[in-house]
């Protein structure tokens, strides 16, 4: 079901001072699919995500969105295209409630006045659309939510805006088993709804549980972009640790 990628990066270079972090990186994400971005610490995953999200524009290379070349120089550019990044630290305001966080920076207004009822209704719809059923009230302040609930709010905020691409940076890193399961279900549901989902994860079980494709970075180079079904657990680990994958080993 591949078709054309909605997000297509080619030949991306990125340096910070004298340190070259990304070398000639290619990366694609397809609508309706979860693309797992894997790699060891320092391989350049976060830098690549920041290039995608417009936080650090790439030094060189092509950035294609739905086949057309675009320039993404700031998070606003990315958001205008429908690319949303959920960062690891979630970037939620703990003193505000769920509705206020979902609409932060993009409040609905009637004239000068905030349209609280419309925002609250939209928040209900968005969270129900993700089949989130663990929240007592959308008027709870974030400070009263658990880690998994906060992750859910951050994801809901990313998909509230007719997004096309959602990038999740280690959404399950700090979560317990049950909460991780919930978040992975949401990730899968996003893709099933037609979004292109990019999932950064260190956990191979999570990667194999939800992803359709795997892209592996090794020391700033993209060493493989493969379908998840075509590789084994061990091959992916080899790609991450040495940049090359051996022959498929005997399946155990």
């Amino acid at each position, binding site marked *: 079901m591949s078709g054309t990628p909605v997000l297509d990066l080619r030949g991306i270079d990125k340096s910070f001072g004298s340190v070259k972090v990304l070398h000639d990186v290619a990366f694609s994400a397809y609508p309706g699919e979860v693309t797992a971005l894997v790699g060891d610490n320092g391989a350049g995953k976060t830098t690549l995500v920041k290039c995608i999200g417009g936080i650090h524009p790439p030094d060189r290379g092509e950035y294609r969105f739905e086949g057309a070349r675009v320039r993404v120089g700031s*998070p*606003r550019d990315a*958001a205008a295209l429908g690319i949303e990044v959920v*960062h690891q*630290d*979630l*970037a*939620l*305001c*703990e*003193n*505000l409630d769920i509705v*206020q966080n979902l609409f*932060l*920076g*993009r*409040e609905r*207004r009637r004239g*000068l*006045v*905030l349209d609280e*009822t419309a925002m*609250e*209704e939209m928040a*209900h719809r968005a*969270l*129900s659309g993700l089949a989130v*059923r*663990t*929240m*007592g*009230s*959308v*008027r*709870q302040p974030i*400070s*009263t*939510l*658990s880690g998994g609930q906060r992750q859910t709010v951050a994801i809901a905020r990313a998909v509230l805006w007719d997004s096309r691409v959602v990038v999740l940076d280690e959404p399950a890193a700090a979560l317990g088993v049950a909460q991780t399961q919930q978040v992975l279900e949401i990730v899968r549901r996003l893709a099933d709804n037609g979004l292109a989902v990019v999932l950064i994860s260190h956990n191979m079980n999570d990667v194999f549980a939800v992803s359709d494709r795997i892209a592996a970075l090794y020391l700033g180079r993209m060493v493989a972009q493969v379908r998840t079904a075509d590789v084994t657990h061990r091959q992916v680990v080899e790609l991450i640790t040495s940049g090359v994958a051996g022959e498929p080993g005997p399946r155990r």
Partner: protein
Amino acid sequence: MSTDIPESKEAAMRMADSDFAADRREHDVRSALLDYRDRIRAGELGALPAILGLVSLVVLFTALKPGTFLSKGNIANLSTQALPITILAMGLVFVLLLGEIDLSAGVASGVCAAVMAKLIVDSGQPWYVAVISAVAIGIVIGTAVGWLVAVVRIPSFVVTLAFFLGLQGVTLRMIGDGGTVPVRDDVIVALANKNMPIWLGWTLAAACAAAYAATQLLRWRRQRVRHLHSRPVELVAAQSAVVAAALLAGTYLLSLDRAPSPLITLGGVPWGVPLVGALLVGCTFVLGRTSYGRHVYAVGGNAEAARRAGINVTRIRVSVFMIASAFAAVSGIVAASRLNSVTPDSGGGNTLLYAVGAAVIGGTSLFGGRGKARDAVLGGLVIAIIENGLGLLGTKAYLSFLITGVVLLLAASIDALARRRRSSAGR
């Protein structure tokens, strides 16, 4: 969103905490009160400490000075005493919401008052030109402070400490050592010394009470019709009734004839009170109902998150200092009206600490992100009552300093403890 009837108790329990149950549950008075108790326990104190403090201080001073403290004249005196502190504190709430501090707001009020007085006395300008110029000077000072804090990124504590020193010099230069500029303009003097006609006071109070009740009920109805989170109507009505009672009781007390001699009559609400009321309504609207206000809270809660959400954090930072200094200018004008003069000491001394104390006592957090405009009014009353009551008791100056310091420390401790409570209450 299932509407199934839960089959077992367990399922019912599960539903209780999910599916936005709290939003769709019929809230009655009991459940709302239970929610309130939970919030208090979780460190969401709101206006509770300020109201408790207010009541206990009134009881204390009434007991210590039975005839004088609650006399008609003193109540009117109290209300004008609270005016400058409250206005200054209301501007500071914006700065405190970002977790910043403006130590220069007090002396800025002195500079602005001096500008106003000099324009009237030396240049013979009409009062409105003088007032507009004073507020403009306030905005200029605030812009400079805000720019240094937000763009140059000097900690606000240091910037405003420097302005605290420097602006005192400016006032001294304008007025001269030991000098005094008298304020005799009728309109300016009327702010703190003249009263509204009795009928106007009543009309205004009744209109405000009705408007408050109407907005509360309309909002409740809108939420109800669209099945959104709403409070029980009994509580909404009770809250409106309490506000109306407070407004009307205050008007009644201030409308009594408080003239010391039976030959004249003196009564009515001082003109400064509706001024504070208007500022309160304006600030509450801006903070609670506009995206600017929402962004102020967001930057105070998590500046990085606000930046990523596309909010111009620098602009918000500069703007709150502009607001604080503009309010300082108004506060300085009201203080000048109360004292009928501007001196090099205007806005110095305790002025700023009283205002910060007022905001914090009212419930505004020094850590940013929490606070309301009404905090300034509640806290301003508390501070004015302490100042006034200690004065009536003839307390020695050293003791007044000590007591006020302890009260400020107490308020800051409540703030810090509540914050600790909140962070441990997160599930």
